[in-house]
């Protein structure tokens, strides 16, 4: 079934000179599923995609697509890109400027030897699917960026590949169009049932599109899992920082009697209570990182002066929301709230729930962000 896996990547390593762009990466994608490779620029996510497409030759590892071993270094298997039977949408769209819209879309059928009339009919049908009916005879250079994106998409789907790769495919679109394309892509995938791998540096895109998210850091898999798990329970400091959580250094001061929580001393004065990350045992005195989402830092105006009262150190208005930095007994916490007009120097009451704090051992920190 789906769990059998459609794409298998095992121990993939790709070096550029002495630099390992991808280092011993393995993951699977089930048929019809969507996987997002997420990470900051230079983390190796695009290199993995290019290895999958046969555009780069890895130094080690195996790649299996749809039951066919398309790359195996040790057995000298290396399929050229055109034999891998997939579709790809590049960040630049790579729409050929010397062809019309229809010629671009019909290209995969042309090189497969389909007669002209038949392939133009199929191209038209695909253009209709992506919302570009009637654009067939336009020169490909005379359409907008969003339309080029759709042409590239139609071209990647027209020969009905079972695997489609997207390399930062939505990054060049403006915010509104990106939102719209994201929804349309999901619908299209439901209909055509292809397996998709997205490369993106944008969390919203990754979580919005993918069933599974692979977070990459310096050529290795930092964390991987269902979109919800990866988002809600970051398992490393890198992941926590990448997803924009507050990450604060501290030490375990006490293991709570319930076994679920620990108390962490963040500095001399402030101590919080939080949940250790899954499967982690933390003894007293262990250096740890306490992480909490900006959205979970509750603040409201207050005139009372007690341990839970902080001062706004900086505030910026972001439209719907307001982001501010609260000085809570010398600990700087970033918080995002619906705009209530806070200003520097305002006194606020800070509410922190022990279930929202994630406590990670400090030693598992790796890389930078």
């Amino acid at each position, binding site marked *: 079934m789906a769990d059998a896996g459609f794409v298998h990547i095992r121990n993939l390593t790709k070096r550029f000179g002495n630099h390992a762009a991808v280092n011993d990466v393995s993951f699977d994608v089930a048929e019809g599923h969507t996987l997002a490779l997420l990470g900051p620029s230079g983390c190796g996510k695009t290199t993995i995609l290019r290895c999958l*497409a*046969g*555009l780069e030759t890895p130094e080690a590892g195996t790649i299996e697509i749809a039951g066919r071993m398309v790359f195996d270094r040790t057995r000298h298997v*290396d399929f*050229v*890109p*055109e*034999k*891998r*039977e*997939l*579709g*790809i949408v*590049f*960040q*630049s769209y*790579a729409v*050929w*400027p*010397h062809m019309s819209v229809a010629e671009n879309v019909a*290209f*995969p*059928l*042309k*090189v*497969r*030897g*389909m007669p002209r009339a038949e392939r133009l009919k199929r191209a038209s*049908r695909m253009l209709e*699917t992506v919302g570009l009916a009637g654009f067939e005879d336009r020169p490909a250079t005379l359409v907008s960026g969003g339309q080029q994106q759709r042409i*590239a998409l139609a*071209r*990647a789907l027209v*020969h*009905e*590949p*079972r695997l489609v*790769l997207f390399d930062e495919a939505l990054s060049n679109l403006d915010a509104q169009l990106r939102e719209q394309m994201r929804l349309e892509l999901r619908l299209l995938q439901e*209909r*055509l*049932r*292809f397996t998709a791998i997205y490369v993106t540096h944008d969390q919203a895109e990754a979580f919005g599109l993918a069933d599974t998210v692979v977070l990459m850091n310096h050529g290795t898999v930092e964390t991987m899992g269902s979109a919800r798990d990866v988002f809600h329970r970051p398992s490393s400091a890198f992941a926590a920082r990448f997803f924009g959580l507050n990450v604060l250094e501290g030490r375990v001061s006490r293991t709570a009697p319930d076994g679920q929580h620990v108390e962490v001393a963040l500095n001399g004065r402030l101590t919080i209570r939080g949940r250790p990350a899954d499967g982690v045992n933390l003894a007293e005195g262990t250096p740890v990182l306490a992480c909490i989402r900006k959205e979970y830092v509750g603040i409201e105006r207050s005139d009372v002066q007690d341990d839970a009262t902080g001062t706004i150190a900086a505030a910026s208005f972001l439209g719907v929301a307001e982001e501010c930095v609260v000085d809570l007994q010398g600990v700087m916490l970033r918080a995002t709230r619906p705009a209530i007009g806070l200003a520097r120097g305002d006194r606020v009451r800070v509410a922190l729930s022990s279930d929202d704090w994630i406590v990670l051992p400090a030693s598992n920190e790796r890389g930078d962000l």
Partner: protein
Amino acid sequence: MTIGGGVPARDAGRHGRWLQVVLPATSVVIGVLLIAGPFLATVIRSLLEWGADGPQLSAANFIGLFSDPRFYNAAVNTVIAGASTMMLSLLLGFSLAWVVARTDMPGRTWFETLNLVPFFLSPYVGALSWIYLLAPHSGLLQWVARTWFGVSLDAIDIYSVAGVVWVLTLFYTPYVYLFVIGPLRQMDAAFEDAARVHGASFWYTMRHITLPLMIPALLSAGLIVFVTSAGLFDVPLALASPRGIRMMPTEIFSLVQYPSDLGRAAAFGIVVLIVTILLTLLQRRHIGQRRFDTVTGKGYRPRRIRLKGKGLAAALALEVFYIGGGVVLPVIALLMVSFSRLWTGRFLLRTASIGNFDYVLTRYNLTQQAIVNSLELALVGATLGVALSILQAYYLTRGNPRRRALVDALLALPLGIPGIILGLGFLILAIRTPLYSTLTIILIAYIARFFPFATRTIAAMFLAINPELEQSARSSGASWLQTMRLVVLPLLRPSIIAAWLMLFVIFIRELGATILLYGQGTETISVTMVILSERSSGYVAALAVVQLVLLLVAFTIFRLTRTSIVQA
């Protein structure tokens, strides 16, 4: 439409990655062989001395060369001519480019094209035309000055090093012009504006901001002009040889003539090659050390300076001087001579005739054969050269990144090798083979000497093509050959046309290499002009006009296709 296996890829043969690796690599190997062959032949020949019992290894050729005062005489004259040409071309080329790119001079779009015309003309014909214009006592200009203005120009003698420098400057100015006009146009206006805002005058800004920023372009252009103009055979042959003024290219030529001394000629060639290579390395190092970011792409384009009064007059005078000297006057002189039954230094309408053309085109075997040979060489040579260049450009932009830099440097070598020296190399290679004095060896020499021009033009365009355009074709199921045919070649087309026309033009007028390699029946237009120059200036001029027409047709196509010359 659901996915059920989809449309499968056709099995396009089992070549896989083989072809895409082997074809470009082969083109590089051919390029290296084309350079290494004549080079090694020249090196070996320069070290051989024929004794009673066959060839022996010896330094005699070099000892003979270095103890010959004529060698030093030729070297000094050549360096003086090359350096003077370089300075004058830099001055003229930069001024012309600046006027066209940075001022509002009326008609500048026309001048932009006209300034390039000498690039397409034959320097040999240019030198001949300037003989018609300025030969002592019989030149057209002398006659005009004497009869119309009562001034005697008899002191001016075109048969001199100064004459050589003058004609070379006219022909090499476009090189400088092409090198600097791009950077001048694209320079971020902020560099100059900042200087002006902070109190610098126009001239101060020019001297301390604009010129220093142009230094990489000027250095490259200057080196190319020095090396290639000093190595050009055409002009010294026409203007220095008649007075016995010794210069490097003509010295090598006469060493090959009967009684020939190929060993000495080879030794001379090696000395020139070493100097050329050292200069090139020096320039590469210098440019490598200093990084300039004049081409930002962003920012404002520099403003055009508004010319008025004296400035406008000076700019227009500069253009008239250059276009007049480089194109208009030579062409007028050439036409007058070609339509005169007997050239006496002045054109008389009543004795005008088309007799020269009639003879050259329909009645004289040698000239007819020469025109056919030249066309054949240019058409076949340009086509083969461009095919080779496309594959080399592919290697240079898409091939193994670790070897690219080395290959790039290797393949650029012929840019600085004088035609006569490469011709000498191929002569030594071919001399006792069936290739000797065939069109084939001439063709090979042409491609060997000039393919880097085409390769660089095409590689520059390759760089502008996003590799993802090719990659998405491959991922769509196209094989490497299909991708080349359906995506790469159509996108490269403008540069392919430009490169083809450039090679065609160069091959139609080439003289330096041909003069050593031709034989009976394989004369080209340029060679035939040299042969006939002893006999009748009318025939030579008529033949030169035929060549000029071919070159101008190529130039016109060049402009019509709106392709641009990318700096070599």
